[in-house]
């Protein structure tokens, strides 16, 4: 409860004040609700004193009607107000979260964090919104009403007050335990679900392969095990909660019989009026029903807290710091100066790497998978910051340059080509938003995608992306090259090895790559002998260290790993089945 208030204040800031009138209205509504019970008690007293008449009935009925109408008005106002102010708060929250996410550095956006951000911006903010607009009022009402009833019970007989109070308090720890348990089992169920999803995606992605190896249905035991695991965790989660939820309900429901027994006892010792007895029963009934409302609201308070914590954790992510807004270097020479890097802090992915690339030259990165090629390119575009040494452009440490200024000078073509849900034209225009259509078409021609685009139903206006026309991996690749061509940045970072395998169209893709690399400072993770032989420098990496460095001729002369590789390639060209 306290956490909830603190979290709402932390998340909503000044706007949390908007909730105060709503809360006050809810308290007022509870008071009015208690008034109805008050009328009932007055009727009881009159009945006991045998002074209940038509006159009185009329008066009481009028009071009830008044209270009823007043409640309708109060409720309507408070509900409308919370339905207006709650979403305004969540809207501001979505905007500020979105704006903050925008400032985070590129390295933050891996698949994992994207999944998390998506979940937070959709599920968590919606939960927050729903709870704010629906549960806050109910919660305030339940609590206020219980407090009023308790006060009346005390006024009638302090023993009843204590009995009802004690029982209500007894229930709370049970509620708390069930909340903690449900959070814990919720986590386990969630990870079981994620396990199913990852194996399901694997199953769908590899369905052809699995069919060929007769591994479909339950024979694909990885998925079947995950499904069984999910069943087990879900069942366990529900069953482990049952005793606590039910004992909470039992305890709070026992308010009624306890009032009955205690009242009967007090009646027999003559220390209580029958009217008070009935009034107390009435209070017990209403408090017990309010407690059960509280019980059903409680899980939502928990999930509100969870959502708040998730949102706060995103707001707590800090973007990279930088000093200079723009890149003012005399040239685009790039130098790695004793660069080391580690993702985890344990395993070194790059170990003390030093080399330089002059402006306008091409550097080819080669070496086996896991040797650190991708890391070099990622560090250069500041997905991450180096853990040792420094990277400079024109003598300036890239950590001093604003990320925007850095990316403005780079064109990057990597493996995962993300297409917006938009037309092909706009997808290419991403490279240069103010480009004319003619510029886009010329970039598309150079990237060898013009031809396939014009054969599509609506040409450049064809919608692509999720839910749009499907295009092949090679075609996506070429669109991303067209983007980069349109951007025309002085530094180009490329990954050839993971470029989509589309053997039929490979020549087109390669030609597009070649055009992109012309007259630029290029870093390319290369796999074509052509690219490599033409590079000014070849950097052969192995397990995070530079094994060989030089141009094709120099490396052939040294007769190392590279020379062997080229020799193998020569053999390969002779091969036939």
């Amino acid at each position, binding site marked *: 409860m306290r956490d909830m208030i603190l979290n709402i204040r932390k998340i909503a800031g000044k706007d949390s004040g908007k909730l105060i009138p709503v809360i006050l209205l809810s308290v007022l509504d509870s008071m009015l609700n208690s008034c109805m019970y008050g009328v009932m008690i007055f009727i009881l007293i009159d009945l006991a004193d045998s002074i209940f008449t038509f006159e009185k009935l009329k008066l009481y009925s009028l009071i*009830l009607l008044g209270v009823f109408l007043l409640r309708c008005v109060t409720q309507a106002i408070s509900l409308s107000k919370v339905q207006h102010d709650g979403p305004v708060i969540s809207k501001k929250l979505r905007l500020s979260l*979105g704006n903050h996410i925008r400032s985070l550095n590129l390295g933050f956006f891996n698949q994992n964090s994207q999944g998390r951000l998506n979940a937070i911006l*959709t599920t968590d903010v919606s939960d927050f919104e729903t709870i704010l607009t629906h549960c806050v009022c109910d919660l305030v009402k339940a609590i206020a009403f219980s407090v009023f009833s308790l006060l009346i019970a005390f006024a009638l007989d302090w023993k009843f007050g204590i009995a009802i109070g004690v029982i209500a308090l007894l229930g709370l720890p049970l509620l708390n335990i069930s909340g903690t348990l449900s959070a814990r089992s919720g986590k386990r169920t969630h990870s079981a679900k994620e396990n199913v999803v990852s194996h399901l995606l694997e199953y769908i992605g590899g369905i052809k392969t699995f069919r060929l190896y007769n*591994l*479909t249905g339950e024979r694909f035991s990885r998925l079947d095990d995950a499904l069984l695991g999910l069943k087990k965790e879900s069942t366990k989660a529900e069953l482990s909660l049952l005793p606590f939820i039910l004992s909470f309900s039992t305890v709070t429901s026992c308010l009624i019989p306890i009032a*009955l027994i205690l009242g009967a006892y007090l009646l027999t010792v003559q220390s209580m009026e029958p009217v008070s007895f009935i009034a107390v029963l009435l209070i017990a009934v209403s408090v017990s029903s309010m407690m059960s409302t509280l019980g059903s609201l409680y899980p939502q308070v928990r999930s509100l807290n969870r959502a708040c914590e998730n949102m706060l954790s995103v707001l707590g992510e800090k973007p990279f710091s930088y000093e200079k807004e723009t890149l003012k270097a005399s040239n685009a020479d790039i130098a790695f100066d004793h660069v080391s890097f580690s993702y985890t802090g344990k395993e070194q992915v790059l170990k003390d790497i030093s080399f330089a690339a002059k402006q306008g030259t091409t550097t080819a990165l080669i070496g086996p998978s896991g040797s650190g090629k991708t890391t070099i390119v990622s560090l250069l575009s500041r997905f991450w910051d180096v853990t040792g040494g420094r990277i400079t452009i024109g003598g300036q440490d890239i950590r001093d340059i604003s990320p925007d200024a850095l990316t403005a000078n780079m064109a990057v073509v990597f493996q995962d080509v993300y297409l917006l849900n938009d037309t092909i034209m706009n997808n290419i225009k991403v*490279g240069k938003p103010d480009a004319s259509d003619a510029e886009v078409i010329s970039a598309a021609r150079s990237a060898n995608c013009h031809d396939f685009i014009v054969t599509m139903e609506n040409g450049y206006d064809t919608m692509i992306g*999720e839910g749009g026309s499907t295009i092949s991996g090679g075609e996506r690749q070429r669109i991303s090259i067209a983007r980069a061509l349109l951007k025309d940045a002085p530094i180009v970072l490329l990954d050839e090895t993971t470029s989509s395998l589309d053997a039929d169209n490979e020549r087109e893709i390669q030609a597009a790559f070649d055009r992109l690399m012309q007259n630029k400072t290029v870093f390319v993770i290369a*796999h074509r002998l052509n690219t490599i032989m033409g590079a000014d420098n070849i950097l052969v990496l192995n397990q995070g260290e530079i094994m060989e460095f030089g141009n094709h001729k120099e490396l052939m002369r040294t007769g190392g790993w590279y020379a062997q590789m080229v020799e193998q390639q020569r053999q390969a060209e002779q091969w036939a089945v």
Partner: protein
Amino acid sequence: MKTKNNNKAGVRYLLGLANSKKLILAVAIGFSVLSGLCTFVPFLMIFRTILLLFGEGGAGSAMQNGIIAIVAIVLRFVFQAISAAMTHVNAYNILYHVRRELCRHLGKVNLGFFTGNSTGEIKKIMMEDVERLEMFFAHQIPDIVVAIVVPVAVLVYLFTINVWMSLILLLPIVLTTLTQVIMLVTSKNPMDEFYWLAGKQSAVILQYINGMPVMKTYNLTADSYREYADTISSYNNAWWRAAKILSPPSAIITVIIESGLFFVLPLGGYLYLTGSLALSSYIFFAIMSIVFLSSYINLANFAQIFSQISSGIVRIKEIMDIPAMGNGNKTLLPTESHSLTYENVSFAYDQQEVLHNFSLDLPIDSLTAFVGPSGAGKSTAAQLVPRFWDVSKGAIRIDGIDIRELEADNLMDNMSFVFQEAFMLNDTLYENIAMGKHGCTRQEVEVAAKSAQIHDFIMSLPKGYDTVIGSEGVKLSGGERQRVCIARAILKDAPILIFDEATSFTDIENERKIQLALESLLESKTTVMIAHRLHTIVGADQICVFQSGNLMECGTHHDLVASGGAYASMWQTYCEAMREVAS
């Protein structure tokens, strides 16, 4: 009307899913009803005590009544616990069953299904739509039975006490139902708009986050933020437009449900004063008015939740209704070599024919190359063999047996297929190779890896064969992945092999190794090789040239070059391109 039919079919289908578990469900519902009836016992005891108090008869003492009430409460929750435990265990069993059936079915349907449906959609059905069934089986069925049976039972009892008072208790229910109907009608348009914008908002958020890397590389975050912000604002406006209409009536519904006393007290007072209602009954009805209506709240959301569930059911059913590929009963020995024949084969995706009536013989242990430009149909022709799709006309035969007459498993046992896009499990390299043969030994895996020229690379990794590949682990290059797939196929050692060559141009680190790997794989197999680099297949037993779905010509390299047809010109272009590359 249509949705109504869907709902009905949906319910029947749902109960069909429960099938063998219906009995458990029925018993669980029985306990729920008992528990629901127990809810009212304490109030009955209050009534009896009041009767006692006013000297109007009634049995037992207040103390007894209290104890009966406590027993009833404990029983109520014991019954509820039994029922909840049963329904949940049952529901999660059903969920597992449905998911398993879906997975099994997905393994049998025509592969066109996967091109027509995004992975995201399938995932949504498997996870979210199926998950909602839990709501139906564990909560809705018992809840609705209880929500109908218990109030009716109580009402019958109340009628025996006083008809008029019972009727006035029904009045709030009538009023709230009317208000709800009015709400539904007046808010139809704003609600539709709201749901539409809610959907759009999720899509925009998804794009905002997933597109962020691209937007950042191109310094476009301000633009994408603007779109994001606009959508969020319009969602917010739509919310308010709907809420403005809905808030007052729903506030009134809440007040009506909570104001049982307002209805009961005046009428009761009048009836009491005119002598047609006992004092004790008056008080009893007042107390009942507090609890009777609150049990009605559970029913309020039922319709909305149910329509969500049933739209999910429709989607589940759509998948299950896709006809599975037929299964034959003939078998072939995977240890023997087989011939392969295409006999007047035509094939169409939906309406569009992509392969036009061709015939082809692949003799035992021969090597046939499929060549041709992109989209010519060579990959499709190859993918008909493992029945990823079935031919539209004609037949494909192995040793003369139509592949549709073979047991599906047996067909697969007889064939290996190495794809261009190598598929990898997110698991260890060992598991990735071992999936090639059920129950293989560690040694067999290593032998296969050695033949596939991938063993040395694997051993160079820090954890060797236990290295996990994929999202969390080491990423492999395309060539390395293909060699893993070749190792898998070597391990399987099936008599028919289809190989889709991955690259047409030189890949410095892998090409030679792939070739060596392929040599081990090709030994004594009936092979189809989809080739992109013509010089590798000059020695093939026959080369088949595909062009726009037609099989143009077939023959050895020598014959085809000599005949001066399609292949001859392809060969010429290819040689020029290679010279260009070399220079």
